[in-house]
C-alpha cells in the first residue's frame, strides 16, 4: 500500500456497525503504534434537523484568514495537538534555508522548540508541551496562524 499503512477493512466495518447500533458518534482505539478512529455525524432523525436548524441556517463562519489552514480538518482538542498561543506567521526552521527544528517522526522532549511564530517582528519559540513523537506537522512554513490553531501533533 502506498502509504505503508495496512488496515483491516473487516475491523473497521465492525466498528462502523457498532457505531450505528449504539448511537455512538466516535470510537477510537489505540494500541502501541496503531490507532483506529471511526466517527459518524448523526443526521438521520427529523428532530435533529429542527434542533440544529437555527445555527445551521445562519451564514457559515467566515473563512479563517485568506487561505483556510490545512489543519482545518484537525481538531484543536486532539490530545496530541500543539496549538498556537498567538496570532502570527509560523516558521519551521530557525532561519531561512536552515534545517527544520523537527520533522515527522522526531522524538522530542518536553520543552524542546518545535517551531517559531513571528508576531510583531518577534520570533516566539513554540515548545513541546510533553515528550513524544512528532506525528504530524499541520502548517506550512511562512503561513499565518491564528490563536488556538493546531500546529503539530506530538504523541
Amino acid at each position: 500500500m502506498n502509504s505503508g499503512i495496512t488496515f483491516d477493512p473487516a475491523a473497521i466495518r465492525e466498528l462502523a456497525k457498532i457505531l450505528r447500533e449504539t448511537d455512538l458518534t466516535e470510537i477510537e482505539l489505540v494500541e502501541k503504534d496503531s490507532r483506529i478512529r471511526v466517527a459518524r455525524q448523526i443526521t438521520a432523525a427529523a428532530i435533529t434537523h429542527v434542533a440544529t436548524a437555527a445555527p445551521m441556517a445562519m451564514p457559515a463562519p467566515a473563512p479563517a484568514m485568506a487561505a483556510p489552514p490545512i489543519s482545518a480538518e484537525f481538531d484543536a482538542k486532539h490530545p496530541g495537538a500543539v496549538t498556537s498561543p498567538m496570532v502570527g506567521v509560523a516558521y519551521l526552521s530557525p532561519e531561512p534555508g536552515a534545517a527544520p527544528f523537527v520533522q515527522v517522526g522526531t522524538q522530542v522532549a518536553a520543552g524542546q522548540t518545535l517551531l517559531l511564530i513571528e508576531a510583531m517582528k518577534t520570533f516566539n519559540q513554540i515548545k513541546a508541551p510533553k515528550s513524544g513523537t512528532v506525528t504530524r506537522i499541520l502548517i506550512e512554513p511562512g503561513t499565518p496562524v491564528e490563536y488556538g490553531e493546531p500546529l503539530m501533533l506530538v504523541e
Partner: protein
Amino acid sequence: MPTRPFQKVLIANRGEIALRIHRACQEMGIRTVAVHSTADASAMHVRLADESVCIGPPAARDSYLNMAALLSAAAITGAEAIHPGYGFLSENANFAEMVEAHGLAFIGPKPEHIRMMGDKISAKDAMRKLGVPLVPGSLGALETLEEAKSVAAEIKYPIIIKAAAGGGGRGMKVAHSEEELEEAWRVARTEARTAFGNDEVYLEKYLDRPRHIELQVLADTHGNVVHFGERDCSLQRRHQKLVEEAGSPALSAAERDELGANVTRGLRELGYRNAGTLEFLWQDGQFAFIEMNTRLQVEHPVTEMVCGVDLVREQLRVAAGEELGYTQSEITFSGHAIECRITAEDPESFAPSPGKVNTYHAPGGLGVRVDSALYSGYSVPPHYDSLVAKLVVHGATRAQAIARMRRCLAEMVVDGIKTTIPLHIRIMNDPQFQAGDYTIHWLERFVARQG
C-alpha cells in the same frame, strides 16, 4: 494618509458594533476582517465577515485588548485600516499610535487628541481655551462676600460654594438666592478652615437637576468640521445609558445651533479628526462640558435616524482622507429618534443573564431599526458587556416615536435569556418620560420605585 478608499478593514471589536462596522464596510465594497476570541467563534460578525482571525482566549485582556494580536492579525490578512468601535481599545492613544506606526490607518482621531481628551483635566483646560462652556463660576478663589455676590448674580442662582482644597462634600454649601448666600459663604469657609486648614472657597453654578446632553461631531483632514446635533442621554443607571433620544425633548433648535457653532469652531482650531462626542450637563439653558469621547458611541444610531447620515461610512471616508463634501448648512434634522439599549440582564435586579437564545425575533416595519448580533441559537457569552440589541425607532414626532417603540418592544422576542425589554416597556409607558420631564436622576428613582 491614503486618498483612495480602503480595500480591507480590520474590525477590532465584537458584538453589535462589530456587525455595524462590517455592514458599513460591505456597503462600501470594503472587505472585512473579523477578529474574535475563542468565545466568539460563532458570533454573527465572524460569520458574515470576509475573513476572520481568532486572536485569543475569552478574557478580553488576552484577545480584544491584545494589541500585538490585533496588529498581527492585520498584518497577516493585509488589512489597511483598523476600526476600534467603542470600548476596548477605541480610546487608547498608545494603540492608535501603534496602528499608525505600523503603516495602517486608525479609524478615529489623532493619538494626541485621544490622549488629551482621555485626561479630564486636560480636556477641560482645552475646552475652556477653545471657548466651549464649562460649569459657570468663579475661575479662582473668591476674596470677599461682595465678589461672591457679584459672580452669583452673573451666573444666576442656585449656586454652590466649594472649598478650594475640598473634597468629600465638606466645605460645600448651596445657596438658592442672594438671601441665602451670606450664610452659605460663612458656613462653607468655616467648614473649609476646620476640615482643610484653608478657608479659600470658589463658587459654581449648582446643577441640581441636569440633563445629559451630548453633541455629535465629525471632522475630516481638510479642516472641515460639522456637528449632527444633540442626543439626550439623561436616562442612566449607574452611569450606564439605557435610553437615548435625538433630539433632546428639552433643547431648542437655537440652543443646539449655538452650541454646535461654538464646538465646531473650537475643534477646527484644535485640528480634530474623525468622529467625536462632547458630553455636557445641561440645566436652565446652560451647558457645562463634562468630557469628550474620541470615538463612535453606542447611541450613534439616533443621530443617524434624524440626520439621514451613516456615521460609520463617514468615519471610513474621513479616515481614508476624503473630504466631508458638505457643510453645516446641509445637515438637517427630521423627526425624532429613540434608542432602547437591550441588555442580557434581569429587568429588575440587573443580574447578568448570559446563555442560549432559543428564539430571536426582531420587530419590523416602518421607522424601525435593530442593531443586534443576536440570532436564534446563539449563546450570549458571559465574558463581555451585556448589551445584546439596540432597538431604534424614528417617528415624525416624539410622541409617534414613543408609540412606535412601544409596539416594537411588544413584537420583539429574545427567548431563553432575561433582557431589559420589560423595563423599557415600563419606561415608555411612564407619563413623565412621555412628557420628556426627566433629569439624570430620574431613572435611578424610577427603577427604585418599581422595585
